[in-house]
């Protein structure tokens, strides 16, 4: 299924999905299917994603409403949340974000950076330069990333390649 919003949301949220399995909100079979879909570059149906990741979807709705974005199920709303407001939700301790360890709060922030190097091996790893320095992130679910791309990392997973306009809006990189 091709749903660009669903697919990008899956890339942002999947690193947390193991916790949902542990909590019993997602079955192991659903988790495995989510990962298989990610690896195939396909989205789950929107209704299932809204059930799997209700907090993220709620925040997308809230941010969309505040910013006058008509459709919360859009890349515009997704970016307004994850790239614009996610850190503020973390700092405010919204929902279970408030229960994270300090180091996990930092891990959970979305970072925008330029791919300096792609290292192919058992795992595809990207060296990324952000405004906070260089970091290594996994490219497992973003296999099209290449040197020079501007990407987002969330919890050390590359989540998407940004176009120039979106990158400029949310993350002016220092040269």
């Amino acid at each position, binding site marked *: 299924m091709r749903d660009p919003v669903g697919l990008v949301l899956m890339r942002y949220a999947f*690193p947390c999905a193991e*916790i*949902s399995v*542990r909590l*019993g*909100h997602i079955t192991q079979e659903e988790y495995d299917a989510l990962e298989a879909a990610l690896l195939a570059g396909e989205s789950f149906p929107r209704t299932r994603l809204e059930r799997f990741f209700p907090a993220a979807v709620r925040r997308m709705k809230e941010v969309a409403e505040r910013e006058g974005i008509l459709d919360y199920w859009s890349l515009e709303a997704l970016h307004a949340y994850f790239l614009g407001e996610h850190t503020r939700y973390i700092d405010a301790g919204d929902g*279970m*974000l408030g229960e994270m360890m300090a*180091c996990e709060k930092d891990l959970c922030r979305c970072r925008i950076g330029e791919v300096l190097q792609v290292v192919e091996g*058992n795992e595809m790893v990207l060296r990324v330069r952000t405004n906070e320095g260089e970091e290594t992130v996994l490219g497992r679910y973003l296999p099209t990333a290449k040197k020079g791309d501007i990407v987002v990392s969330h919890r050390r997973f590359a989540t998407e390649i940004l176009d120039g306009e979106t990158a400029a809006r949310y993350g002016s990189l220092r040269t």
Partner: protein
Amino acid sequence: MCLAIPGKVVKVDAEKGTATVDYEVEQREAGTVLVPDVTVGDYVLVQAKMIVQVVPEQQALDALAAIHEADERREKWAPGGTGGVSGDRGGRDA
């Protein structure tokens, strides 16, 4: 849902690029490509079978203590319920 449980590294296989992480109730293998300097005794966060962060020891111990405390409260109010670090912690987030 961004509420990972720290585990303790009990074995590192540098050749395979993996580590064995102990969660008290079970042990799991995870990749170390993002944290090549991880050593036995480190507390770590694992996502999608990869270690993504080494956790400062005090933060890990505080988190585990809070988890045990929550488990004890749950046991008190729901005898026979599932406890341990893999038990229900409620809520979802991302």
